[in-house]
């Protein structure tokens, strides 16, 4: 079966340390004030002693039916040979149509290149060399896993068979490749 890269986020394990946020900026030289990923806090909700909060790592969801690819007038936003959404900064004119189309607010105009930018799964720099993405490698709580969901022996496939996962904003029919597991999280 063809490779299908995906990231699994076990929300309960995330301690909100933002190591992923920083590792991503470091790996990808993301300009100041801009982020390919962040892990914002949700909550706290409830009253003492039943107070809960959690962190949700947010980045490009690597949609398999990506609105950003559909609308891009120059085909700068495209699917690569693995079906991942990538941006060719050379073709991009910076029209920001994709920014308005992405329901996850995952994109920004890179202040250095002037082109649209977002998470790439660290594909060129790391995954193609057999490494895990920077955010996954560095994850302190062990919340992030990455791999081929079609390979039953991969970390991600194993976790996904054990636990029920969700997609963010599934109602838009974007078919994301980021799986959120909320087991043990009070929402």
């Amino acid at each position, binding site marked *: 079966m063809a490779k299908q890269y995906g990231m699994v986020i076990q929300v309960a394990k995330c301690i909100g340390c933002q190591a992923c946020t920083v590792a991503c900026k470091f790996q990808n030289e993301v300009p100041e004030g801009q*982020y390919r990923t962040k892990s914002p806090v949700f909550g706290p909700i409830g009253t003492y002693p039943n107070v809960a909060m959690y962190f949700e790592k947010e980045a490009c969801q690597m949609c398999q039916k990506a609105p950003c690819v559909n609308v891009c007038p*120059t085909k700068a936003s495209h699917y690569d040979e693995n079906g991942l959404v990538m941006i060719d900064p050379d*073709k991009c004119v910076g029209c920001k149509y994709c920014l308005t189309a992405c329901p996850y607010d995952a994109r920004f105009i890179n202040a250095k290149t002037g082109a649209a930018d977002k998470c790439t799964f660290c594909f060129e720099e790391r995954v193609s060399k057999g490494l895990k993405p920077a955010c996954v490698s560095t994850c302190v709580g062990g919340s992030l896993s990455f791999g081929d969901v079609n390979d039953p022996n991969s970390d991600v496939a194993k976790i996904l068979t054990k636990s029920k996962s969700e997609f963010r904003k599934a109602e838009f029919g974007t078919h994301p490749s980021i799986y959120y597991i909320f087991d043990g999280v009070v929402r």
Partner: protein
Amino acid sequence: MDIFWGIPSEEHIAWGGMIALYLFLAGIAGGGFLTASLTDLFSKERPTKLIKTGAYIAPVAIIFGLGLLVLDLSKPFFFWKLLININTNSVMSIGTYIISVFVSLAFVYAYLVWAESATTLTGIWAKLVQFSSRFFVLRKPVALLGAIFAICTTTYTGFLLSAITTNTLWSVPFLGLVGVPFLAVLFLVSGVSTGLAATLLGAAKSDGLKIYKKLDIAFIVMEMILLALLYLTVNPIYFNGSMATLFWIGVVGIGLVLPLVLSVYGLYKHSKWVAPVYGMVIVGGLCLRYFIVYSGQLF
């Protein structure tokens, strides 16, 4: 979700005032062209001043609008890549070609209208006009083809936003019809109305405008019905906060109610009301574009 652990929130508005202004100007251009070309094609009196005004407004407005569009790109010097890399799935990519054809036709038409009435020229200009006189027969075909592309351009401004299917304000369908975006209909009506208003402003002193003034009243009423429909169909959150002020005062008050009251009154009593009435229609059209562009991204 804005502030968390010291990391500031990001800008959520991708398209701002420049895009709103561009959509507005494209509407004026389309509406101006339609006013001029349809008059040219179907009117027996063919009021010269009115045709000229509309024919000149179109290329000026669309070029100004396109200039803003290019400036809004983060890489304005690479705008030509829009012309060589085509994505047939992308409304913007298709629109680039529609607008290019419209711009060309608008310029040719404006030239033909100008040249045919330019009788007092001397020197090189006279020679140019004389040389091109053999093309004067093309005026009506150009008017007709241009009218079609004017309609396409004006509706395109709606399709551009409605193609964002993940935006529940922009992509709302017209009367629930699949494939007929509300904004395409709304921007067509508003574009024709503002384009007609701009033309009437320019031709304010000529006679025989009564039919056009009546038409504009009809468009204002149509727009009111459309906006009422929109208000009732979409999530009320889009009409909140500062957007409420813009909508009720700018779009509804200045753009529709006041001009309607004044033009019903002015139409039969004072023809001097042309400037304030049509000025307000134009301001209202601009407010409408701002409202739709911003509100769709704020909530």
